[in-house]
């Protein structure tokens, strides 16, 4: 049963620290998405890739967030420096057709 995996599942860090979240998409999927979910803003699309190329990262705060796909089995989302307002659940999703398969998420708390 193929699944999207995300690490870490939980992360608590202090303001100003760098945070890196990792995602392993389902093998064979060529589209990868990063979403952020908060109670106030709901599910927001941060960035997405197709065949490892970034297609759109307009949803991402450019000054502190960066997303990359160093290879087909790994997508990363980095926040540097982190701020308390970045506290949220970050989901990675992958797809091949139109369906998006979500990972379990990384719950980030910035104090």
């Amino acid at each position, binding site marked *: 049963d193929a699944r999207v995996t995300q690490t870490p599942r939980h992360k608590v860090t202090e303001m100003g620290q760098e945070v890196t979240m990792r995602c392993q998409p389902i093998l064979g999927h060529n589209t990868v998405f990063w979403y952020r979910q908060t109670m106030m803003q709901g599910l927001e*699309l941060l960035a997405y890739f197709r065949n490892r190329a970034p297609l759109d990262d307009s949803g991402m705060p450019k000054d502190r967030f960066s997303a990359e796909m160093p290879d087909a089995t790994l997508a990363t989302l980095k926040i540097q420096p982190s701020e308390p307002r970045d506290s949220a659940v970050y989901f990675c999703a992958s*797809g091949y057709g139109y369906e998006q398969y979500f990972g379990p998420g990384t719950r980030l708390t910035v104090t």
Partner: protein
Amino acid sequence: GQQVMQIPQYQHVQEGEDFTTYCNSSTTLSNIQWYKQRPGGHPVFLIQLVKSGEVKKQKRLTFQFGEAKKNSSLHITATQTTDVGTYFCAGAVGTYKYIFGTGTRLKVLA
């Protein structure tokens, strides 16, 4: 900017009652998807609608896409406790780019 709103925000129903959530977009959508997220879980894909006026059914769930392709609805007949969760619509505003609705949280009382 582009927005996708859902109503109601919350819905509590008795088990066996019907439930409907409505999704409205500020712009025309090329297609719309529906997801379910259980408490503490992640969104799970339910269905995609593409054609104007399209209606699709999955057991007790009926999905509709409006004629103008700006609104959609999800109707659950005879809810069960397993239907508990938040239902999201996601409107396609570009190739592979989806804007998620605000979600409707469903609680089913046994």
